[in-house]
Every structure is written in C-alpha cells, then in structure tokens.
C-alpha cells in the first residue's frame, strides 16, 4: 500500500548523534514537531535531497525520491520548499523570484518576465502591486507569500515548510499562521511542516510526528 508520507532518514551527523527517523502517514498535512536540535530540519533537508542520508528511503504519494539504491537530485524531486527566513533571492525582484524555477539554464528571468503562472500566483497572493520590488522592502507576511508563490509556481508534488513562523513576533505569527492555514487548506498538496511550536499544530496539521534526539517519540 502507498502512504502519502513514507519516510525513513538515517544520517550520522556527528560521532555522538545519529539521526534515525522513520514515519509513515496518510495525513495530507503532517507536522514534525520537537525541540531545536532534534533533527527536524535535517530530516527536511534530506527529503529535499539537499543533504545525502546514509540510509533509509523517502516516498511521497507513491513517488520514490530516494531508496532502493537510487536517489534523485534535489533538482528532480519537484518539491516546493519554504525555508526558515524564506531564503528569497535578494538581488531579484518579487516577479523574478517567483519565476526563478520556471526558467532553466544559466540566466535569471528578465525583470519584465511574462508567464501566465507567474501572473496567476502574483494575483493569487495579492503581490501584483509589489511585483517589481526587491525582497528587502517587503514585510514579513509579504515575504512568506513570495516564498510560497515561488515554491508553488512549478507545481510541486508536495510542500515542505521549515519553521515558516519561527522568526516572527507573536502577533504577526498568529496572523501569518492563520493565513498559512488557509493556503495549505486550499492547495490540497501534501504538506510537511517542521515546527517547534505546539500552537502551530491545531491550525496547520492533520497529524503530528514528535521528534526528540533524532528519533520519533511514541
């Protein structure tokens, strides 16, 4: 049988600490929760193919990302990743950031890049008036929306969110949590949320995996 999430990551991070995290779930919106240093972000990076695990497997909605002797490059995994602090490209405008993954090759999209998908997501996230602005001039909420739009424009098979609310102060966190909940609800994409904050669970997750010291807690 195929689960939405069938993940097992083994990675030796230091002589004292080996990540060995296995979980399977059919929840569309799954949260990995645990204290910082528990290995949540390392798990997410391994699923995204950005670090090389020493063993295990990753299957998402029936697609094998790694396991059984093969491992897809991060470029081939078709995962939308929203990083902590969003990792927007500071030298590109909002429009160029969102169009980044639509243009392959060695050149960035032009400042006036026209693509239906870009226009759609700019509109969807109410970013059209800010399309020609660079990320430094955006508010926290606007940055989050750009990061989401950039991750979604390539029609990923799943969304990975790494502590998307951690860097924000409490009132903004509440507001953006509600906004994020609305989006993850509407998108109908498998979504994996990494968080250390129990308050995120009620609104953002259908099921929870608790992580401590590199292991899943029963």
């Amino acid at each position, binding site marked *: 049988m195929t689960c939405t999430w069938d993940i097992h990551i083994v990675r030796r991070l230091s002589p004292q600490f080996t990540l060995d995290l296995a979980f399977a779930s059919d929840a569309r919106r799954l949260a990995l929760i645990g204290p910082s240093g528990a290995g949540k972000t390392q798990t997410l990076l391994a699923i995204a193919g950005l670090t090389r695990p020493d063993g295990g497997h990753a299957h998402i909605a029936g697609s094998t990302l790694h396991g059984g002797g093969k491992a897809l490059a991060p*470029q081939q995994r078709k995962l939308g990743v929203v990083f902590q602090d969003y*990792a927007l490209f500071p*030298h590109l405008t909002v429009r160029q950031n969102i169009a980044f*993954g639509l243009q392959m090759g060695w050149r960035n999209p032009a400042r006036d890049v026209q693509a239906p998908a870009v226009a759609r997501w700019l509109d969807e996230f109410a970013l059209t008036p800010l399309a020609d602005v660079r990320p430094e001039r955006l508010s926290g909420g606007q940055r989050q929306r750009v990061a989401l739009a950039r991750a979604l424009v*390539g029609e990923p098979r799943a969304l990975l969110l790494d502590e998307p609310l951690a860097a924000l102060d409490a009132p903004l966190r509440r507001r953006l949590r509600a906004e994020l909940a609305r989006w993850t609800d509407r998108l109908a994409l498998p979504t994996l949320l990494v968080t250390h904050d129990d308050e995120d669970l009620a609104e953002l997750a259908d099921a929870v995996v608790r992580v401590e010291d590199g292991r899943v807690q029963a």
Partner: protein
Amino acid sequence: MLDAAWVPLALTLKVALWATALDLVVGVAIGYALARTRFVGRNLLDALLTLPMVLPPTVMGYYLLVLLGRQSAFGGWLFETFGLRLIFTWQGAVIAAAVVSLPFVVKPARAAFEGVDARLEQAARTLGVHEFGVFCRVTLPLAWRGILAGTLLAFARALGEFGATLMVAGSVPGQTQTLSIAVYEAVQAGQDAQAATLTALLSVVAVVLLLAVGRLARGPVAAAARGGA
C-alpha cells in the same frame, strides 16, 4: 621622451591585463573551492596562496625560475610540447605578475563566496536549477562586488610588479621592460626626467584604480580587500 614612456606603459598594461585575466579565472575557482568545500590540505593551500604576499618578490621569482626554466621538468615539457619559452619573455612576465597578485583575488573572492547564504543556493536547487545555473544566477551575482574589488587590486598589484618580473623576464626594452623596471633602469642611468615621468604615470593609474576599488567595495567585502592589501 613620450615614446620612451609609451612603450613600457603599453607593455605594462598588456602584461597586467593578461595576468589579471589569469588571476580572475584561477582565483575565483580557488576562492569558491575554499569557501564551499571541505578537503584535506585546505588550510595548507590557503597558506601557500598567501605566500606571495609575505615572501619577497625575488623569492617568488626564484621559485618560478626553478619551476619554469627549460632545465626543469615542467619548463622542459612546456618547451617540448608547445614550444613555449617563459624565461625572458613577456609571457614569463605575465606568469610572474599573475602569481604575485593571485592572493588579491583569492582572498576577497573567498570572503565574498562565504558571505553568500548557502540557503539561497539550496533554494535554487529545489527549484530545479542545475549547479552551473545556481552558480551563475545566485552565487556570482551576490559575490561579484567582492570579486571585482579583488580583481582591481590584483590589477594594481600586477601593474607595479617588479622583483619577480625582473627575475623571470629580465629587462629587455620593448619586450619585458615594464614601467616599474623602466623606472629602475632610468634612475640607474641617471635619466631623472624619464624616471619622474614614468613614476607620475604609474602613480596616477594606481590612484584611479584604488578610487574605483573604494567605490565598489563597502562593508565586509571592503574590509577583506583591505586585509588582503
């Protein structure tokens, strides 16, 4: 008079431009490797690349003579294979200037690459862009200021190269006699007016370059470039 200044100036510019071009390619590659990869001997490589800054240029010139001379394995191979003679040629002067000024590119380039958030490169990878694209579209645009500042410093250093160039390429007027060597020869020959003209010329070029570097590089990059100078 003017002609006597023009010939060494043109030669100096040719040698310095070639040396800087070499430094740019080699220095950016090494700076990137030092910033982004972990390998055995990384610190040793860094120390070796800093040597041209602390050793007297004559010592660097001696090393190059030993390495590139036709009696040496490498120099012999160059001559046998390409018919390339580096000792007492302008190409030899290019090599000497490039080696001596290489740290001026490597250090700022390394600092600039280290200043680029690795998360941005990771984000680019998850968006499907291959490694060369990530370098051209994310890493380089965010590091180019530091690299360019270092390149200008390397050019300025190559313009003024004396010791290693004299050791490797000698002082053949019109062929390897660069401005700095021409100044030395003019003073030795008692041609004070000639020496003064050449000195003024070189000084003006250097000041213009340093002003350009100052404009380009600000903040941490400027600090790294100054630390390198």
